C-alpha cells in the first residue's frame, strides 16, 4: 500500500494544546512521525530579559497552567542561587508541601486527560473532581487557583494559615480512598489494559540518551529523581526513595507510565504529610533580597513532568541578561517519533497522552 502523510493537529482531540503531529502511515501502521511546535510560542525568555527579576514570577506561572507552582519555584531557586539568597527554613518546608500538592494536582489533571483519550470519559470527571480539591487547597495560602505567584525569590508570599494541615489531611484521605477505587477500576479493565500494555515501548538506555526525564524515565525502571539526586529545599530532610515501574517486557510502556504517576501521587501525599509535620516555626521570607545581580547561575528541579532547569545570566542590572529554560516536555516530544514508529494510528492518543504533554512549557 502507498505510504502517505497525515496531520494530527493542530486541531485534534489528541493534542491537548496547540501542536501538530505529522505521521507517515502505511495502511494503519506508523512508519515515521514529525512533531511540529511553535503554535503557543510566547517568547518567555525574551520578555523576561526586559522585566525585573522579581516580576518574572508571573511569567513562569504561565509556562504550564497544570503545574504553575513548580515552574515559579524553579525560577526562584535559580535567582536565589544567582543573588546568593537562601530562603528561611519554614519557607523551604512550605515550598516542599505546596510543590507536592501541585504535583498531585498535575498528575490528576493528567489522569483526567488521559482516560478520555482512551475512551473512558468517566475518568475525566473523576480526575477533575479530585483535582478541584487540591486547587482549593492551594488557593488557601496563594489566593490563586491555577496561577499562584506564591513562591518568591527569597521565600514564599505568605505563611500557611492555621488549620491548613487538617484541611490537607482531609483532602488527602479522600484522594487515597478514591485512588484505590480508580486503580481497581483501571488496572482490571480489559479495554484499558489492551490499549496500554506493550504500547509505546522504549528502553531505559534509549530514554536516557533521548533526554527523557521525570516520571517517563522512572517508568522505565531508572530510579533517578532530582528531588533526591540534586536535592533542594526541605527534601534532604524528608524520608523517601524514588519510585519506579517497569513494563512487563522491560522498559517503559503506556501502562507503566500510568502506574508510575499513580504511585507518585501516593508518594507525594506521604511527602506532604512529612513536610507539614516537620515544619519549623519562623519567618517565610529572607531578610533582604537584592534587586540587581551579576554572574551566572542555574538550578534544576524535579518538575511534575521531568527535569526543569533554569539558567540565568546577570549583568549587574535589575533585569536578567539571558534567561534560558529547559522544558522537560520539549526534549521528550522530540523523542516521540522513536516510540511511535511501528504502532497503529489508534495508538497515537495513548502514546502521546501517556507522556503527559504540556504545550505551554514546551513552546515557552
Amino acid at each position, binding site marked *: 500500500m502507498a505510504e502517505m502523510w497525515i496531520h494530527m493537529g493542530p486541531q485534534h482531540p489528541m493534542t491537548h494544546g496547540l501542536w501538530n503531529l505529522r505521521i507517515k502511515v502505511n495502511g494503519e501502521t506508523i512508519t515515521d512521525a514529525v512533531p511540529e*511546535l*511553535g503554535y503557543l*510560542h510566547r*517568547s518567555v*525568555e*525574551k520578555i523576561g530579559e526586559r522585566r525585573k527579576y522579581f516580576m518574572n514570577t508571573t511569567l513562569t506561572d504561565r509556562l504550564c497552567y497544570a503545574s504553575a507552582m513548580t515552574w515559579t519555584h524553579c525560577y526562584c531557586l535559580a535567582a536565589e542561587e544567582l543573588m546568593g539568597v537562601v530562603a528561611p527554613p519554614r519557607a523551604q518546608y512550605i515550598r516542599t508541601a505546596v510543590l507536592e500538592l501541585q504535583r498531585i494536582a498535575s498528575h490528576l489533571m493528567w489522569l483526567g486527560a488521559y482516560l478520555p483519550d482512551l475512551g473512558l470519559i468517566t475518568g475525566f470527571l473523576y480526575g477533575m473532581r479530585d483535582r478541584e480539591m487540591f486547587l482549593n487547597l492551594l488557593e488557601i495560602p496563594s489566593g490563586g487557583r491555577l496561577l499562584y505567584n506564591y513562591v518568591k525569590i527569597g521565600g514564599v508570599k505568605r505563611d500557611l494559615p492555621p488549620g491548613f494541615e487538617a484541611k490537607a489531611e482531609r483532602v488527602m484521605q479522600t484522594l487515597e480512598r478514591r485512588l484505590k477505587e480508580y486503580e481497581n477500576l483501571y488496572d482490571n479493565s480489559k479495554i484499558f489494559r489492551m490499549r496500554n500494555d506493550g504500547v509505546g515501548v522504549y528502553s531505559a538506555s*534509549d530514554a*536516557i*540518551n*533521548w*533526554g*527523557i*526525564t521525570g516520571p517517563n*524515565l522512572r517508568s522505565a525502571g*531508572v*530510579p*533517578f529523581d*532530582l528531588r*533526591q*539526586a*540534586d536535592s533542594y529545599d526541605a527534601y534532604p530532610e524528608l524520608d523517601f526513595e524514588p519510585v519506579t515501574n517497569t513494563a512487563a517486557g522491560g522498559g517503559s510502556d503506556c501502562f507503566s507510565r500510568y502506574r508510575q504517576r499513580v504511585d507518585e501521587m501516593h508518594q507525594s501525599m506521604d511527602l506532604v504529610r512529612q513536610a507539614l509535620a516537620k515544619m519549623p516555626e519562623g519567618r517565610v521570607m529572607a531578610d533582604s533580597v537584592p534587586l540587581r545581580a551579576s554572574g*551566572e547561575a*542555574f538550578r*534544576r528541579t524535579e518538575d511534575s513532568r521531568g*527535569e526543569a*532547569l533554569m*539558567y540565568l*545570566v546577570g549583568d549587574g542590572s535589575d533585569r536578567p*541578561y*539571558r534567561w*534560558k529554560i*529547559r522544558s522537560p516536555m*520539549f*526534549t521528550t*516530544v*522530540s*523523542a516521540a517519533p522513536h516510540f511511535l514508529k511501528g504502532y497503529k494510528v489508534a495508538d497515537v492518543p495513548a502514546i502521546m497522552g501517556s507522556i503527559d504533554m504540556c504545550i505551554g512549557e514546551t*513552546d*515557552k
Partner: protein
Amino acid sequence: METGQLVQQLTQHDGASDGSVLRSNVGRISITREASHSFFSTLKNDFGFDHCSLISAVDNQTGFELVYHFSIVDAAGQMLEVHIDLPRDTPTVDSITHLWGGADWHEREAYDLMGIYFIGHPDLKRVLLPDGFAGHPLRKDYVYEIHEEEW
C-alpha cells in the same frame, strides 16, 4: 568521582581551561571550539555523562557563548557546565547529536532563536518560529518590527 578531581582531569584535555567547582556536585570548564568534538566524546564515553540537560546560547555582544549542561543519571546527580566561545561572524560548532540524541532539539532551538549553526546536525531547521521567519530574535542586535495597524 569528586567534582574537584573530575574538573582537574578534564582540564588536562587539549583546549580545556578555566576549570572550577560551582557546587559540591557541579563543575565548570571552558573548551575551545576546535577541541570540542573530541572533548565531548571523552565526556560521554570515558566519564559517563549520559544525559545532555540543556544547551543555552548567550549573546555577549562581542561574540556568542554556548553553555552546555551535562549530567550523569544516578543518585549522586553529578553535573558539568561546559562553555564554548564562538566568534560573531562565524557562529558554528560541531553538533553533539551523534552522542546525545536529546541534544537534537536544543541545537535546533539555539539555531532558531540565536542563529548558531551546528555542523553535522541531521535536520537543522527552525523549531519554535515559523519557517519563513527572518532573523534570530534572541540576539541582542535584533530589531523589532513594530506593526501599527488600524483596527
